[in-house]
Structure formats: C-alpha cells, structure tokens
C-alpha cells in the first residue's frame, strides 16, 4: 500500500511539474472550447436577412412573423447591388400593390427559402383580400428537437477528447520514457508487482480526467458560454474513469511499438486526431453523412462522446451509460490484452 501511494504521489508530482503536459492536458482543450464556444455562440439563431425597398401590409406581416430580417434601402439599384455582390441573398422591392423579389442565383437554398416565405405571405394577403374563407386550413407549431446549441455538444465532445488525449499521451510517453531511461528495469529489479506500478499510473490519469471534467464544465458554464447541465450529469464520472482506462490501454499499445518519445507522440497523434474528428468532438456527429456515422461507431471515443452528451446535456439517466460503458470496457480488455502481449521491458 505504501509503495502504491508513494508511486502515485511521485507520478502526480512528475505530472504537475511538467508544464508542457499541463498545457496539453488543460489549456489546449480549453482553448478549443473557448474559441469554438465564442465563434458558434450565435449559431442556430440567425434568421435570413434580405434587402428591402418600400413598405406595405405584406412587409408588416413578414416583420411580425419574424421569419425574415430586413435591411432597408431607399434605392432599388442599391438593394439589387447588395444581392449582386453576394452580401444578401435577396432583395424585396415593394411598390404599392406590386411586389418584386430579386434573388441570388448562386445561393439556391436560401433563395428558395426566401421565395417560399415571401410567396406564402403574398398568397395569404391575396386570399384575405378576396374575403373568401380558406378551403384548407394550415397551422404550424414549434417543437423542441434534439438539435443542441453548440456549447451543449462542444463541452461533452471536447471533454471526451481531452481525456482521451491526456490518457493516451500520458501512458504512451511514460512507457517509452521509462523504457529508454531504464526505469522499467529498475522496477523489474524491485520486488514490486507490475500491477501496483500500472495501477498507480492509471490512478494519476483518472485523477487528471476528473480535474479536466470539473475545469471544462466549469468554464463552459460561465454565462458567456452558457452550458446548461441536465439530468444525471454526475454519471459523467464513471464515464470519465472508464474512458481513462480505455485510452490508457491504447497508449500502452502505442508505447509498446514506439522507440522514442517523439515517435510515441507522433503515433499517438495519428491515432487520436482522426478519431477525435470522426467521433464528433467538434461537431454533432448525427449531422454527418450516414457512412461517416457508421465508421465513427468503430471508435471508443464516439461512444464515450455519446454517453457524455446523453448524461450531461440530453437529460438521460443511467440507462444511457449501458452501451458506452460496455464498449469502453470491451475496448480496454481487448487493447489491454494486446498491449500486454507486445509489451517490452527493454529497447
């Protein structure tokens, strides 16, 4: 027990005193969180803005609905030029009863949206002008959907990624550096089990993951980012621990093959970076094409990410942990077994 404790303390000190590691563990992911959080803060709220010349009952109805935003111009040519320059998708020109819409050919989706909205309002105004009761009735109502505000998916994503990075790098670099410096030999020559050494290092990684969780969620909860936790958010803790073990095992596998710290670092990047992009660290993966979603299911980070999303922001309970936990445990066992097969004490 004392050996385990002393080793854990020693490794924790080594971790805390290494500024580069601290940077990549805490500040680097936080930078992504802050930058993306600020950049995407207003995403999902923006309405299409078009140029407007003139005014009338149709325009008032459009304004009231909030479907479009308007930028008013006195001059028709100035408004059209805005469309020609690509600054605005369309220009609405109202001269009494005559309503013209000039739209940009290039941005077909937005143009079609604008055309559809304006057309709808014109039709309704026409119908109202005839005084006839409508043959068909149509009502529209808002529904809360699964689409999340950016900070809501960024925080779980970047947290999972940050934990994965620090666990993979932590174990791979420690292993390679200990092998190169013959610390592994010293350990082999001491009457201590490899399990004690390994578990004390994992304990340090797990502690780091928890601190990462608190830090990232804390920063994202600041009013400027506005993260809102929901449901059983504390279920993120077992997920963090399982994720740490899984990615620690991955790092051991990388470290078994790499001869130098530089090689280990490069190899860890090659493994972690594509996985991070394909697992929805920076964007919600359910908006990705179907084939990519299928591919991403192969990565443990995707499942950790899904679990994090479910328990942190989607308000789900413990049942949401089942699949991610099973995948992470399975991954740890398989990769851990492989790593123990290819493990080398010496260069």
């Amino acid at each position, binding site marked *: 027990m*004392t*050996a385990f*404790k*002393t*080793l854990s303390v*020693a*490794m924790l*000190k*080594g971790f805390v*005193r*290494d500024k580069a590691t601290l940077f990549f563990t805490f500040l680097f992911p936080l930078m992504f969180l802050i930058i993306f959080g600020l950049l995407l803060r207003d995403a999902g709220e923006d309405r299409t803005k078009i140029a407007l010349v003139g005014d009338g009952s149709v325009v008032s109805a459009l304004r009231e609905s909030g479907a479009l935003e308007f930028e008013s111009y006195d001059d028709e040519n100035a408004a059209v030029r805005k469309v020609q320059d690509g600054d605005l998708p369309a220009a609405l020109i109202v001269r009494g009863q005559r309503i013209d819409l000039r739209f940009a050919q290039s941005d077909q989706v937005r143009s079609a949206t604008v055309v559809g909205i304006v057309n709808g309002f014109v039709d309704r105004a026409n119908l109202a002008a005839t005084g006839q009761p409508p043959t068909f009735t149509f009502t529209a109502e808002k529904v809360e959907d699964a689409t999340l505000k950016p900070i809501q998916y960024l925080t779980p994503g970047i947290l999972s990624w940050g934990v994965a990075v620090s666990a993979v790098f932590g174990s791979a670099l420690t292993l390679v*550096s200990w092998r*190169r*410096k*013959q*610390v592994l*030999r*010293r*350990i*082999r*020559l*001491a*009457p*201590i089990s490899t399990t004690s050494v390994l578990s004390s290092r994992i304990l340090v990684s797990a502690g780091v993951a928890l601190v990462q969780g608190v830090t990232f969620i804390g920063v994202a909860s600041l009013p400027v980012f506005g993260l809102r936790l929901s449901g059983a958010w504390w279920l993120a803790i077992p997920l963090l621990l399982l994720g740490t073990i899984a990615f620690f095992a991955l790092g051991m596998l990388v470290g078994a093959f790499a001869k130098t710290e530089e090689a280990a670092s490069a190899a860890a990047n090659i493994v972690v970076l594509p996985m991070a992009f394909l697992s929805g660290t920076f964007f919600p993966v359910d908006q990705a094409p179907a084939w990519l979603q299928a591919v991403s299911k192969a990565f443990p980070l995707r499942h950790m990410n899904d679990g994090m999303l479910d328990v942190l922001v989607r308000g789900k309970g413990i049942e949401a942990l089942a699949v991610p936990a099973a995948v992470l445990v399975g991954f740890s066992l398989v990769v851990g077994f492989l790593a123990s097969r290819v493990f080398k004490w010496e260069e």
Partner: protein
Amino acid sequence: MTEERSAVVVRDIRKSYGELKAVDGVSFTVAEGEFFGILGPNGAGKTTTLEIVEGLREPDSGEVVLLGESPWPRNVKLLPRIGVQLQATSFFDKLTAKEQLQTFGALYGVSAGTAADMLELVGLADKANEQENKLSGGQRQRLSIACALVHDPDIVFLDEPTAALDPQARRNLWDVLRAIKERGKTIVYTTHYLDEAEILCDRVAIMDKGRVLALDRPAVLVRGLDAPTHVTLQKGLLSAVDASALDGVDEAHEDEVSLTLSTRRPAPVLSALAERGALDGLQVRTATLEDVFLDLTGREYRA
C-alpha cells in the same frame, strides 16, 4: 574459497546475439564482502555478463547462483537482497534527489526517512531538494548509486559508475564506493578504467571479446607479469652509461628531460641512487593492469 560463502557464483555462462558471442564461457566467484571488478574495453561483454548475473537476461547456457538462489527467472525473493545501479542514469521524471530515493525506496517498502538518509552517504544532503536534471554528472551518478543502496542490499552491482566523470568527481565517487565496502557489502562493478580498478578492487576479472583473460588480485596479476619497474630521474644527474653500470639496472635510456632506468630489482638500484644523492625528480613506475592487458591481448588497452 568455498562456494557456500560465496555471494556470487558464475559457471560457464554464454550468450550470443546472432553471430556475436557477447559472453563466451565466463566463470567466476565473488566472496561475501569482496569488491570485485570486471574490467575490459567497451564491447568486451562486461555489461551483458553483469545483466545475466543480476537476472535481467537469461544465459544461453551456464549457471548463476546469487546468495544461494538462481536470479533467473525474476526471483522476487532475491530482489530485496541485491541492489543494481544501471548504466544509464534512470530516474523518475521531475522529482528531486530526495523524492527519487523515497520513490525507489517505496518499491522495496523502505520508509521515507531511511531513504532520505542515503543522501548523507553519497554526500548529496545539500542537494536533497534539487531536481535530478539540475544535478551535475557526478552528483547524478552518486544519486543513482544511493538509489541502488536504498533498501540496504547484500550485493551491489554497479555498471560503469565512474564513466564520463571528470577526475575530481571520479575520486569523490571512489570514497563513496569505499564507504559502501566498509558497510560490509559485496560489490561487483564494471569499469573500463584499469587504474581505478587497481586501486579499488580486491580482485579483478579482465575481459575481452566475451572471455575472462585473467582473474586475480590486481597486485598478483601485475607481479605475475614479470615486467620491469621504470625508475625515472631528472636528466644530468647521471649519464646513461654510468647508470647502466649500476647493479640491477637492465637498461638505461635518456631523452631531452629525463633518464629512465629499467630494472627487475628496484631495491639495490634505488639504494645505489640514494648513495649518489641522485634522486632529484625521482619517479618509480611499476607495471600496471594496462601492461597486463597488453601482455594478455597483444594490443594496447583502449577504453
């Protein structure tokens, strides 16, 4: 010496790496409390021999008995009784000298206080709170030896502890090594400094190309060589012709600054010189282990 009292018994060990016979039939025994040196140039097989004895490698054939036990495969019962200093200075990242000792001590269940006391022995008490990478080469080497001794082992294996040190640091380390011997430890150490081994070791094994060429007390090896003693004097005290006429002098020759006499009986030569009052600048150089190496291999010793 009987084998029951031997700390280390090595019988005809061999280890090949492909075509290269790194260790080619090495045998020796080390008594308890003995300071035993394995000497030889780089690539002689010293380190591989040591690694097999420590139980880090399995020999292709042959047998090793350490304190009555076999070190291979990893013998957990034996490990607390042996201390190993490795060729590379292997430390944990970013820890101070004291923390290194406490951490290595913890691997053996040694208390933090006992571990810190080892700093005293190696003269690093004032560097206790320095990080390992801030220490000088000699200080790191001493710390690494302290780490090997932290659990108070019976046998200590040191692999080239004085390599790459400046002369002052080497001498400081010799004091540390002597202090360890005084504690009654058995020391097995490798070096490529023959002069150092001659000073420190009770017995030495001279290795080259994977084999032991000679094994005995340094003085016995040198004496057995029947090499002449060289007596050097300031030039001008005596002519070369007069000198070669002295009783016991085999040969005399002169260069720009000194006169050198070769003799196999230095006593009458020195008293004759003393009678003549011709002792200015006197130096007596007897044969060394380097001469033994030259004699054994037919080539100059190059570390």
